[in-house]
């Protein structure tokens, strides 16, 4: 524990800006992954433990696309679309077989998928770490804000994530499709009885969730390294985000993701080596005081 360092950091604007932006990046990436996780849970009541795999594969697909086409925009698009398709396949081929089965059965299947794809990634891309590097368009001098250094790419990343957050919440609250999704979250049988094809609806929800995770992976690729284990580390964190924010709540996911991002950003200075512990303490406190999460309804 190093509270002096934390105090010293909080006194200088440069350090505050740097840590806040790095926390913001972590938080926004977490939000994209957690939003899909919480959406899938909200509608299908399935805890998708394989969600981190979509994030990882999105990053690798983007890595290969940029190698082939040199276009980062295409890379992000391909990462997101490929994972949207993968989400549908995953739901249709595997998860749809265990609807209504024991929760542990679903967990078992997700874990098997994680194991399989971690090894497939090793076979296709190799076990070593890959660095995509900053796309050429963003290899420009960083902004200096109040003495803190902010790479321009960070702005793009935060902008896209914020845009997704707005689109998701508007889409869920204002569109007909969003209404159907919310209705299905409450009572899928009734929605089905009213003539909505819930099979398609569930597949679409998985497509959105997978696509968001793939998008996050593609956006993370320039700022983080790619490795076969990257899916599971983000899964655990986005899982914590959904629990703190409330399972099924998009707004909760955003708030909790930013919270975790800030704990990470400033925790590395005040509590080096124990940042993870801090996050778990936050999670335990939330679960004890408000088990349904900050924005959640009681299950």
């Amino acid at each position: 524990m190093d509270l002096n360092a934390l105090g010293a950091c909080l006194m200088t604007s440069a350090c505050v800006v740097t840590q806040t932006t790095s926390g913001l990046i972590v938080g926004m990436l977490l939000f994209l992954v957690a939003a899909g996780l919480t959406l899938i849970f909200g509608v299908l009541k399935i805890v998708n433990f394989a969600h981190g795999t979509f994030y990882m594969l999105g990053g690798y697909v983007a890595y290969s696309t940029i190698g082939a086409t040199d276009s980062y925009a295409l890379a992000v698009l391909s990462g997101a679309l490929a994972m949207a398709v993968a989400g549908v396949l995953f739901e249709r081929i595997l998860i749809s077989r265990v609807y209504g089965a024991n929760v542990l059965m679903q967990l078992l299947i997700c874990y098997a998928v994680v194991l399989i794809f971690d090894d497939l990634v090793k076979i296709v891309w190799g076990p070593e770490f890959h660095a995509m590097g900053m796309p050429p368009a963003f290899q420009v001098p960083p902004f200096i804000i109040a003495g803190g250094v902010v790479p321009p790419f960070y702005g793009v990343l935060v902008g896209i994530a914020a845009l997704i957050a707005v689109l998701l919440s508007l889409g869920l609250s204002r569109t007909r499709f969003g209404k159907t999704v919310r209705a299905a979250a409450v009572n899928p049988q009734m929605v089905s009885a009213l003539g909505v094809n819930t099979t398609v609806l569930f597949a679409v929800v998985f497509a959105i969730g997978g696509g968001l995770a793939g998008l996050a992976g593609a956006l993370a690729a320039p700022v983080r390294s790619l490795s076969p284990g990257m899916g599971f580390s983000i899964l655990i964190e986005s899982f914590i985000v959904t629990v703190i924010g409330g399972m099924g709540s998009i707004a909760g996911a955003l708030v909790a993701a930013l919270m975790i991002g800030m704990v990470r950003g400033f925790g590395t200075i005040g509590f080096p080596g124990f940042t993870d512990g801090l996050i778990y303490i936050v999670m335990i406190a939330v679960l004890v005081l408000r088990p349904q999460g900050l924005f959640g309804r009681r299950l």
Partner: protein
Amino acid sequence: MRSYPGLRDAAIAALALIVVLAIPLLHRSPAFEDFIIRLSAMALFATSLNLLVGNTGMVSFGHGMFYGLGAYAFALTMQMTDLSLPAAFVLAVLVTAFAALCVGAICVRLGTDYFAFITLAVQMLFYSIIISWQSLTGGDQGLRGGIPRREIFGFELASQLHLYRFCAIVAVLGLLALRHISASPFGQTLRMIRDNENRASFLGIVLWRARLGAFTIAGAFAGVGGVLAALFVSGAYPELADWPNSGQAIFAVMLGGVDSFLGPVLGAMILLALNDVVTRFTEYHGLVLGLVILAFALGLRRGVLDFLRLAWPGRAR
């Protein structure tokens, strides 16, 4: 004709123990003995978890914490004090049971899903503490320097054969104790809570107290497994308390079957054997293990022993 289930269980346990102890007399195989030592730790770990998952319907994702705590408590006691091995053993199990009581006091009142999450969070907190408290635990390097293997009851634990016998005896006795607990009125109460907690509550059972009891007992037996693991690796490593280890126990339980007492033991056996065999042939053992798990989960849709019991009702137990 009256049946004596307690006697029958004891007879089966004695028979199994005799067979396991007799094998090295006929044929020495270090690989097999290693396997049984690891299996005895894993079997206790998985079966104690099943007291929660299968018996009580409490899905704990954080059971590895007590396995790791048992290992660390035992190894640290042996390194830092002059206590004899049985005393350190008992002390480690008591510490683990007490920790399980404290964790359970926070967790057992939460609903099913939240219970799973909070146990995971507590375990990960424990893991972070192990990693960051380097002066005591050795951090991510694990607790090294070995465990002084003092002699007990004529067992010389530095010898693999003696360690093998010791682990086999502890595991069989531990499993027998767990079997008695799950067949006792208390175990029946736990099953009633699993099937219908409202009815159990109407009958005057204090739900949280019964659940806390189950959680504490399960934690203590996981601690016993952890002690065996510490003896095997002659130290303690943070991985013992990490989430993949809890995952292993859950998969052992699921593969073997939640509704059969010996299911988790069979599951642990399958998982360990798979790991051993597959790592010998390919470096991609996650791929093979994943495919096997998928085949089991989608093909049988339940654990192996549960499947067999459904296929031949009234036979296999």
